[in-house]
C-alpha cells in the first residue's frame, strides 16, 4: 500500500510513480525553482503530455504541472462509479445561460494525464473540410492549419497511442491502417450496426485508444466496461501510461498536486514563470516559456486571473477573445428496449459508430455529427432516466430493472462558436483564494436544428433495429473547445497556428481551447495531433533562433 495520492505529492525526491507496478517508482529528473527551465507546461492531458514528452525528447528542460494527483491505476482505481469521481475536476464552478453546461466527468479531468485517464478512448480524425469550414462549408471559422499536414500528425498520434481500429475506415480520404486490430463488438454495438444498415448508412468498429493486443506493460483490454471511470488494468492508452512515462524517461519533471494560480510577466512584457500552490504554500518557478494546457475552462481562467498592470484584461487577450467562443458538443441520445439481453456494461462503451452525417452535406443546418453505441453504468443510466423522463419512485425502480435489455445511440455533434458562450471569472473564490470560473452557455438555432435532426435519425435507426419503448435524452453535452482560438491574425484570434500567443511570444496554449470550431467527433485525437505539431514547430523555431 502506498500513501494516499491526494495527501502529498508522489512525484518528489528524484522519483515518480511507476504506473505499471504496485508501489513502483521510476527515476525523475528535478529542477530547482530558480533554474530558468525552457518550458513550464500547465496541464498534463491530451495536449500537455505529448508536448512535454516531445520537448524533453528534443533536449529542452521541461516541467509539467498538474493540479491533480499522480495515480497508479493498478492500486488506485476501484471498479466503482462513485469512488472514481476522484478523477474529475470537482472544484466549484458556476454555470448559467439558457442551457447551463454541466461540468464534471463529461468534460474535465484532474489528474496527471488529465481527462484522458477517464475518457471513452474514441479516437477520430476531423473531416478535412472542417479545417476550412468557413470558406468551404459556409459556417464557423477557418483554422490556420492545413488538413494534409494534420493527416500526418493524426497518423503519428494513432501510432503513439496504438489505436485499435478497422482495416479500412469508411469515410474521408485514405488513412493508414490502424496500428492494432479492432475490438470485437458487444451487443450494443451490434444493434448500432443493424440500425445503421437498415437506414442505408455505413458503420464501423470505433477506433479506440485501448489495446486489442499486448503493448509493453499494457495488457489487452479485458472488457470490464469501467473505461470512463479509469482503466485499472492499463489497457487504456491514456496520457498517464503513454506520453507521461516517455516524458520522464526523456528528462522532464512532473509536479503533481500543483495548482497554478498566476503567470508572471516581466518588464519586457514576456512571461517569466508561474506561481503555483503545492504542499501548503505558494511557490514560483522561473521559465523561459510558459505553455497553458488546462482545457477550455481552466486555460482562460488562468489567463484572465493573470491580469496585471501591463495586461489589465488578462494575458494574451488584446483581441478580447480569451474565454469567448466556448464550445461543447451535443450529446443527445435515443434509448430503447430489446427483447434480447444486451448487457451493455461489458466492454468499452462505444464499440461501433456511424459518421454518416459528418460527411453528408444535404441537410438544413450547418455542422455534422456522428453517433455511437452506448454502455452506461447504473449511476449514469439512472441519470439518463431521471433527466430525460423526469420519473422517480416505483416507476423509476421498475424501468431500471430493464437495464440489461436497454440499447442506445448517442451523438457527438458540432455546436457552433458564439462569443456569448464564454468563461469568465466569478467573484467567489476557491480553496486557494483564486476566483472560480463562471461558465455561460446557450444553444443557438443551428445547434437546436442539428440536435432535432440527429434525434430523429437515431430514433428511426433504433426502431429499425427492433427496439421498442424508445425515448429521447434531449439535454446532454460533452467535451469542450474554444476560449483561446487559433487564427490568422492578432485581432481575431488568441494564438497563431503554432499555438503561440500573438501578444506574448513566450506564452503558448496547447489544448482544446485553441479550436476555432469543434467538428462532429470527439476532440482528443485532434488535441494530441496539434500538440505533436506544436512540438515540431517549437523545435524548428528554436533552430532558427526564433523562440
Amino acid at each position, binding site marked *: 500500500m502506498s500513501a494516499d495520492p491526494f495527501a502529498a505529492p508522489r512525484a518528489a525526491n528524484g522519483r515518480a510513480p511507476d504506473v505499471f507496478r504496485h508501489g513502483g517508482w521510476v527515476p525523475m529528473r528535478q529542477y530547482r525553482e530558480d533554474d530558468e527551465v525552457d518550458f513550464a507546461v500547465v496541464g498534463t492531458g491530451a495536449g500537455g503530455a505529448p508536448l512535454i514528452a516531445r520537448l524533453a525528447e528534443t533536449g529542452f528542460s521541461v516541467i509539467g504541472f498538474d493540479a491533480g494527483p499522480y495515480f497508479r491505476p*493498478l*492500486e*488506485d*482505481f*476501484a*471498479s*466503482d*462509479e*462513485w*469512488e472514481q*469521481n476522484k478523477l474529475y*475536476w*470537482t*472544484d*466549484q*464552478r*458556476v*454555470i448559467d445561460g439558457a442551457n*447551463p453546461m*454541466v*461540468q*464534471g*466527468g463529461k468534460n*474535465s479531468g484532474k489528474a496527471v494525464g488529465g481527462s484522458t485517464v477517464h475518457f471513452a478512448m474514441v479516437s477520430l480524425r476531423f473531416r478535412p473540410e472542417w479545417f476550412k469550414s468557413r470558406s468551404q462549408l459556409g459556417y464557423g471559422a477557418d483554422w490556420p492549419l492545413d488538413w494534409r499536414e494534420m493527416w500526418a500528425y493524426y497518423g503519428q498520434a494513432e501510432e503513439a497511442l496504438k489505436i485499435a481500429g478497422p482495416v479500412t475506415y469508411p469515410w474521408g480520404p485514405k488513412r493508414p491502417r490502424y496500428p492494432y486490430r479492432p475490438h470485437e*463488438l*458487444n*451487443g450494443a454495438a451490434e*444493434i448500432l450496426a443493424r440500425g445503421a444498415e437498415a437506414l442505408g448508412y455505413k458503420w464501423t468498429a470505433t477506433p479506440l485508444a485501448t489495446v486489442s493486443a499486448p503493448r509493453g506493460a499494457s495488457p489487452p*483490454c*479485458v*472488457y*470490464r*466496461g*469501467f473505461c470512463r471511470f479509469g482503466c*485499472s*488494468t492499463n489497457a487504456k492508452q491514456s496520457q498517464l501510461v503513454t506520453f507521461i512515462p516517455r516524458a520522464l524517461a526523456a528528462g522532464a519533471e512532473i509536479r503533481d498536486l500543483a495548482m497554478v494560480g498566476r503567470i508572471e510577466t516581466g518588464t519586457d512584457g514576456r512571461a517569466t514563470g508561474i506561481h503555483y500552490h503545492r504542499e501548503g504554500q505558494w511557490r514560483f518557478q522561473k521559465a523561459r516559456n510558459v505553455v497553458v494546457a488546462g482545457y477550455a475552462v481552466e486555460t482562460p481562467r488562468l489567463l484572465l486571473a493573470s491580469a496585471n498592470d501591463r495586461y489589465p484584461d488578462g494575458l494574451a487577450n488584446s483581441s478580447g477573445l480569451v474565454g469567448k467562443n466556448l464550445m461543447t458538443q451535443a450529446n443527445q441520445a435515443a434509448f430503447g428496449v430489446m427483447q*434480447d*439481453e*444486451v*448487457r451493455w*456494461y*461489458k*466492454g468499452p462503451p462505444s464499440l461501433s459508430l456511424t459518421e454518416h452525417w459528418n460527411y453528408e452535406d444535404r441537410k438544413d443546418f450547418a455542422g455534422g455529427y456522428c453517433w455511437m453505441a452506448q454502455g452506461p*453504468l*447504473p*449511476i449514469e443510466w*439512472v*441519470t439518463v432516466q*431521471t433527466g430525460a423522463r423526469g420519473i*422517480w*419512485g*416505483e416507476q*423509476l*425502480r421498475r424501468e*431500471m*430493472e430493464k*437495464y*440489461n435489455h436497454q440499447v442506445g445511440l448517442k451523438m457527438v455533434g458540432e455546436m457552433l462558436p458564439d462569443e456569448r458562450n464564454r468563461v469568465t471569472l466569478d467573484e467567489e473564490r476557491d480553496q486557494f483564494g483564486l476566483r472560480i470560473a*463562471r*461558465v455561460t452557455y446557450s444553444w443557438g438555432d443551428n445547434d437546436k436544428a442539428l440536435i432535432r435532426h440527429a434525434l430523429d435519425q437515431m430514433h428511426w435507426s433504433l426502431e429499425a433495429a427492433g427496439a421498442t419503448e424508445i425515448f429521447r435524452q434531449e439535454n446532454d453535452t460533452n467535451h469542450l473547445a474554444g476560449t483561446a482560438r487559433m487564427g490568422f491574425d492578432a485581432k481575431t484570434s488568441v494564438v497563431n497556428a503554432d499555438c503561440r500567443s500573438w501578444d506574448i511570444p513566450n506564452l503558448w496554449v496547447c489544448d482544446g481551447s485553441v479550436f476555432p470550431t469543434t467538428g462532429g467527433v470527439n476532440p482528443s485525437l485532434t488535441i494530441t495531433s496539434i500538440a505533436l505539431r506544436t512540438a515540431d514547430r517549437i523545435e524548428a523555431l528554436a533552430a532558427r533562433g526564433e523562440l
Partner: protein
Amino acid sequence: MTGRYPDYDVLAKRDTPSWNDVTRRTVYRRLDLPRMPRYFSEAEWRTLGAVCDRIMPQPSGRERIPLPALVDAKIFERHEDGYRLASMPGQGEAWKRGLAALDAEARTRHELDFASLGPDDQDALLRAMQKGELTHDAWGGMPSKAFFEHRVIADVTHCYYSHPIAWNEIGFGGPASPRGYVRMGLNRRDPWEGAEAAPGEQAEARRINQRVG
C-alpha cells in the same frame, strides 16, 4: 428474493478475480457507513429519510439501502459535482435549505411536517417541487425545481445505484477488475454474471445465480 435476478448477489464475487483490493476497500466502506447523520441535524435527517422513501421506495423482504446515510456521507465527505447552477448554493447548504423549505410547505398545506404526511400528500408536494410550483419564503430564492433536479433526484438516485443491492436488482455485473468479461455478443452471459428469470421460471435462474462467482 424474487425479481428479475432471483438470488443474484454481486457480493458473492468479492473474493474472485472480478474484485481487486481497492474495490473491496471502497465497497466495504460503503456497506459499513454509519447509519446516523454526520452532516444533517436530527430534524433534517428525518425529513431526508421521508424524501428518500418516496424517491426510491424499497421493496420489503430485503435489506434496505441506507439512502439517508449515503446522502449524508456525500456531503460530509465533500463528494462534489464540480459545478452549481448560478441560482443555487453549494450542495450542503442547498440540502439544508431545501429540506427546511419542504417542511415549511408541508406545514402551510397540512399543518404537519413533511415526514408526518401520508405517501400521497408527500408525493403531491414532491411533484409540485419537480414542477417548480413551491415558492415559500423558506426557499430563500432557490428555485424548487432546480433543487429537485440537481439535488433531490440526482443525489438520492445516485446513492441508490452506488449500492450492491441495487446492482443485484438490475442484473449489473458490478466490479470487474481484473477479470472483465469474455462473452460480449447479444444474449451471451459469462458464468460470473447474473441470470435473468424468464416469466414464471424463477427456479432455474435462482439455481444459476446461487453459483455465480
